[in-house]
């Protein structure tokens, strides 16, 4: 009995030691988060260079790769590369969320627009093999967009881009956008097929340039 108790106590002690080591070396005691950037030994300045959050910001190359990957495009078109070339300077050079600013988000949306334009062009011609716009009739104007086909597109993008289901408040924003978009069209434009393509291109752009798509 005594031997058994000793063994149990030994096992318990080992567990505590292993747990402590894991806690210390694995999680809580990271390397110093403040380090000197001084150019000489006596420089005392320090700059916080760490943002060890569970989220980090994509840089320009990563953002473009992500946009292409989630939309199933293996190569970027000339138009996409051109847009990337004029937009990449607006992206962060580091991965800190605190680097987010208005021109960066705007550039992300603009770049996403060109990626989505390629996607819409491809899918429009793909017919039954479409990956994103299965129920969409690109041969009619936006006035004929059905709720069902719109919801299907939104759900598909949500899964592909955000790897989760669309939340209710996000669905509300997209519903409002559809209403707003239609309201900006003349009656003639509501029957134009190009406006349907433009609408879905912009919806796709919103997915690819939202906060959740620009972090990892």
């Amino acid at each position, binding site marked *: 009995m005594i031997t058994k108790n000793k063994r149990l106590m030994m096992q318990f002690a080992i567990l505590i030691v292993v747990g402590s080591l894991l806690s210390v070396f694995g999680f*809580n005691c990271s390397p110093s988060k403040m380090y000197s950037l001084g150019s000489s030994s006596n420089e005392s300045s320090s700059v916080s260079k760490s943002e060890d959050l569970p989220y980090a910001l994509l840089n320009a190359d990563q953002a473009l790769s992500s946009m292409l990957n989630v939309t199933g495009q293996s190569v970027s078109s000339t138009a996409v590369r051109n847009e990337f070339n004029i937009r990449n300077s607006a992206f962060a050079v580091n991965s800190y969320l605190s680097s987010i600013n208005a021109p960066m988000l705007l550039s992300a949306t603009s770049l996403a627009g060109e990626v989505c334009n390629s996607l819409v062009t491809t899918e429009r011609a793909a017919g039954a093999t479409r990956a994103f716009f299965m129920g969409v009739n690109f041969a009619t104007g936006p006035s004929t967009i059905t709720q069902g086909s719109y919801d299907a597109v939104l759900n598909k993008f949500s899964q592909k881009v955000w*790897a989760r289901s669309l939340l209710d408040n996000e669905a509300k924003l997209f519903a409002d956008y559809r209403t707003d978009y239609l309201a900006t069209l003349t009656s003639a434009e509501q029957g134009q097929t190009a406006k349907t393509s433009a609408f879905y291109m912009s919806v796709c752009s919103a997915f690819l340039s939202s906060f959740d798509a620009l972090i990892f």
Partner: protein
Amino acid sequence: MKKNKSQEIPSWAKTGHSKPVTRRELLAHGIIPFAGTLFAPQMMQLLLSSTASAQSAAKCATSASSFAPFIHLNLSGGAAMSSNFVPMNSSGAPLASYNKMGLGNNQLPIEREFGGGTFAGTENGALLSKMLEGIRSIADADTVSRTSFIGVCVRSRDDSSENASNIFGLVVKAGLNGSHLPNLGTRSSSTGVNDMPAVLLPPTPLVVRSFRDITNSLGYSAAIGTQLNEAQKVKLANLVSGLSQQQSRKLASFAAGEQLQKLVECAGIKNKALVEEGTGAVNPVLNATVGTIWQINNNSNQGSNDYVFGSMVYNALQGFAGATGLEMGGYDYHDNSRNTGNTRDRNAGVTIGRILQTAKTLQKPVFLYVTSDGAVNSPESDSRTAPWTSDRGSAGASYIFMYTPTSRPAVSANQIGHFTDAQVADDKFPIGNDPSRAAQAVFANYLQFNKRIGDFSRVVGRNALDASVLSQVIKVA
């Protein structure tokens, strides 16, 4: 802790989702919860006093800041800063000799400008300070009469991007922000020029390689630009803003999450405003006089250096942009001649003159900070035009120019720190051997220029210069 983005997760396929490869996806699958729950709050606490708070000052600015425009001109390579501005010793007298600094013996003629600034003067009918010559070629007498100058004696590392002389983070945290644009820079670095941040990491600057980079940042192009009308673009900006606001709410569970969430929210709100407003206001050639100063017009190449610098300076002075960094290359010019150095120095002077003259044209104040990485050395010679033969960062210096439309800003002295008779910046002076501390001194003068010196400790934080040092380095009255 190393970020692990390549863990194989055997259970992902069972969830119906795509393969989790990112940290976010791994978190969503509960694979790396400990890093998030145990680690992040501590780091966010650090961020509270640094990066995030540097930006939090910006809030959702939709109008120009009350702080004076701040422009940083970086002469990359190690310019002869202390051979254009002539540093004095601790008594305010000339050094025993300037013969390692390419200026000969101590009978050096001194030209006083900007209310007492000491510059290498005239010999044989030619001004020795080519920077001053360049400034005078552009800035008129009235502009010069409303400008003050302070030379900062500080050693820096030669030919290095690691001199922590940049104060954009401090300036932003103090409250300078652009109404339309973030900080601007000309290099893809954390500061936008060839240096490193002092004390605080600044927000990411918009890198401007062409005026088009500025206009692009204020609107959509390509497919969205052509396929959506203006109203639709605004609606799209609104949608992206709304999505990002909602999605960033997850940050609220962290210590500084509210600040970061606010940042995302502001970026979205500002986006909508930018798209609505368009790009009309930011073009420098809209002001003909500014166009003349920078020698640009509607037909000019928007990627030219003149157009890039002109547009950056114009937007900084108008309050459209935040802190603005301009980098000029080619200042590692010790090629055993004086000609290359003189040409480059004059070019720097022309740029300084253009900045000051643009401020006068727009009737805006400006605080201009000029830095370099290291300095140059001449053979010991009595010649005042001796060639530059090697690097000599121990003789480094930086400059402050301050212009106000009403009158010359008052200063108590035109020099911070001093040189020794060894013809080097005195490393015993509190800021003489440390670009980062010298940068703090410059920041203190910027705050004083804005009558906000009381904010110094709050903004700089725990590494702040103490009161006794501040009393030695603040020269703005």
